[in-house]
């Protein structure tokens, strides 16, 4: 299809509609998603050569993509409601408040480093779903908590989730990881520092930012340096987990050394250990499932997937035949969270913290809390799937890249990555959609391929935190259901700012010819 202003706006139509009804009319995610899905179907049928077969198969394909996300959302909510029912989440909040009353330090610990650590291991929305309720329990308001945990973990998205986004970029570009790692980790390292500063700012304004500046700089050096060294030496699967863990320990020591609060802790050591138990189990199981080969090879064989035939539009755009998203039930992050939650329940039950009939209450609360979120995810993923099969997403990116020349493209490149992640909710998907396109554009314009691909994935990492699917998930865990529009407008300010900053950084690096 020819790319002009009209076709570009048509392709952007469903996203613009979604944003307008969510941000302008304050609709909830499920209603906005349903309307935008209907609009996407109409636009795809009328203008982009879609047919009944395409709509039917993309609907089925989208189910598996949605299920991949929903398994995490449902189980993360279940774990959260379990800890809330047990009262342990409040205890952690009290413990941290007793340890330090410094809001900026609380923000660094729970809003920046803890979600980054979780991102390193699991990602897929877990960092926000787990960290945001903890921040609320320490006294931050829900919107602050969501902004902090979203901004705080974004730098770790590319090398997080065992570097799945990075791997997807290597797969579609067919380039060696060692070639792309320096530029990618440099950009993300600088972004780690900026996101740390933003978290302290959101936590306690300019005073907090100023007070925690040197701590933020020190921690950033650990995160950025560790990420650079590990990813450049081929160990990208742990390039976020290890630096984030070291940074958490260093921050804990700094807080303990300063001990700004004089009040003795309100909870006993036993209570604290029990309260931290769900997270200790989660971290341990995640490491075991990801690092012990037997779990992946043996349990990973239990999978559910469907094979889809070739799908073509009447305009000649073809999606080749192939399997849909495989759901590996026994090794899925959602299964690990659920297993952690059930072990926690058994321990809490034995310790007398939870009663036997609490389990059904927790299940019922989980189902009730996840209804709107589930609909929103089904519709949003459905939109993304139709858009990618009708090449609407590609038209959006190509339009942006063609409108700008060699000097401006480095600024625009991260926005393309961010757009892909915003629509699909995933840095990996954005890399699959756009990495090859970015590489080709860089070659045509005579720009550094590693730098432009770094811009793509860094933009994707920043874009993924703004993705409605992730925001909706976060809202569900802090009780802001149907307030997604309000939250997304706040996160967009920081997210777009970070993408713009990335673009300026890429322009500067390109000007000096560092890569």
């Amino acid at each position: 299809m020819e790319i002009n202003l009209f076709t570009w706006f048509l392709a952007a139509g469903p996203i613009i509609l979604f944003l307008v009804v969510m941000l302008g009319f304050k609709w909830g995610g499920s209603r906005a998603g349903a309307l935008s899905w209907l609009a996407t179907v109409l636009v795809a049928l009328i203008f982009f050569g879609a047919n009944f077969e395409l709509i039917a198969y993309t609907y089925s394909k989208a189910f598996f993509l949605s299920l991949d996300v929903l398994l995490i959302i449902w189980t993360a909510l279940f774990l959260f409601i379990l800890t809330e029912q047990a009262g342990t989440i409040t205890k952690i909040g009290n413990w941290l408040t007793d340890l330090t009353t410094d809001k900026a330090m609380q923000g660094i610990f729970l809003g920046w480093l803890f979600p980054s650590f979780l991102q390193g291991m699991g990602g897929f929305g877990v960092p926000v779903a787990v960290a945001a309720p903890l921040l609320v329990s320490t006294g931050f308001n829900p919107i602050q908590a969501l902004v902090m945990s979203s901004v705080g973990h974004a730098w770790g998205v590319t090398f997080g989730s065992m570097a799945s986004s990075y791997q997807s970029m290597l797969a579609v570009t067919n380039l060696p990881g060692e070639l792309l790692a320096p530029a990618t980790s440099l950009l993300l390292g600088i972004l780690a520092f900026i996101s740390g500063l933003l978290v302290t700012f959101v936590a306690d304004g300019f005073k907090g930012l100023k007070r925690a500046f040197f701590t933020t700089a020190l921690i950033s050096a650990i995160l950025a340096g560790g990420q650079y060294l590990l990813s450049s030496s081929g160990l990208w699967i742990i390039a976020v987990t290890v630096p984030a863990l070291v940074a958490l320990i260093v921050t804990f020591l700094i807080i303990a050394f300063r001990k700004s609060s004089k009040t003795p802790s309100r909870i006993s050591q036993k209570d604290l250990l029990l309260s931290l138990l769900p997270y200790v189990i989660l971290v341990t199981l995640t490491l075991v499932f990801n690092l012990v080969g037997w779990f992946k090879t043996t349990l990973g064989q239990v999978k559910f997937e469907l094979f889809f035939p070739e799908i073509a539009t009447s305009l000649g755009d073809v999606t080749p035949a192939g399997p849909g998203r495989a759901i590996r039930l026994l090794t899925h992050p959602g299964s690990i969270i659920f297993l952690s939650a059930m072990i926690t329940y058994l321990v809490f039950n034995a310790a007398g913290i939870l009663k036997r009939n609490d389990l059904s209450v927790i299940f019922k609360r989980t189902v009730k809390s996840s209804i709107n979120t589930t609909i929103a995810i089904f519709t949003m993923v459905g939109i993304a799937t139709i858009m990618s099969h009708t090449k609407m997403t590609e038209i959006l990116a190509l339009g942006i890249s063609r409108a700008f020349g060699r000097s401006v493209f480095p600024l625009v490149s991260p926005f393309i990555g961010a757009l892909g992640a915003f629509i699909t909710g995933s840095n990996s998907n954005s890399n699959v959609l756009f990495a090859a396109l970015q590489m080709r554009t860089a070659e045509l314009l005579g720009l550094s391929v590693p730098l432009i691909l770094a811009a793509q994935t860094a933009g994707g990492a920043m874009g993924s935190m703004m993705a409605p699917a992730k925001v909706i998930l976060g809202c569900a865990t802090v009780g802001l259901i149907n307030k997604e529009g309000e939250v997304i407008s706040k996160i967009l300010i920081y997210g777009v700012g970070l993408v713009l900053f990335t673009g300026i950084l890429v322009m500067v690096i390109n000007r000096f010819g560092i890569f």
Partner: protein
Amino acid sequence: MEKKSFINSANISRISIAADIVIPFALYYAMIKNSDVIAWVLLGIVVITRLALVITTK
């Protein structure tokens, strides 16, 4: 006592989720087996539930 209508936001949401879980499989197999009428009906149900969501959700 006023009788509560069945067509309300909560019920439509539940129906919509049930449809989104069951229909993808049924639709996939209908398409693979070229059962066009069944496929049209199934996708029609999806469109109607989406429309109902837009109309009934506050």
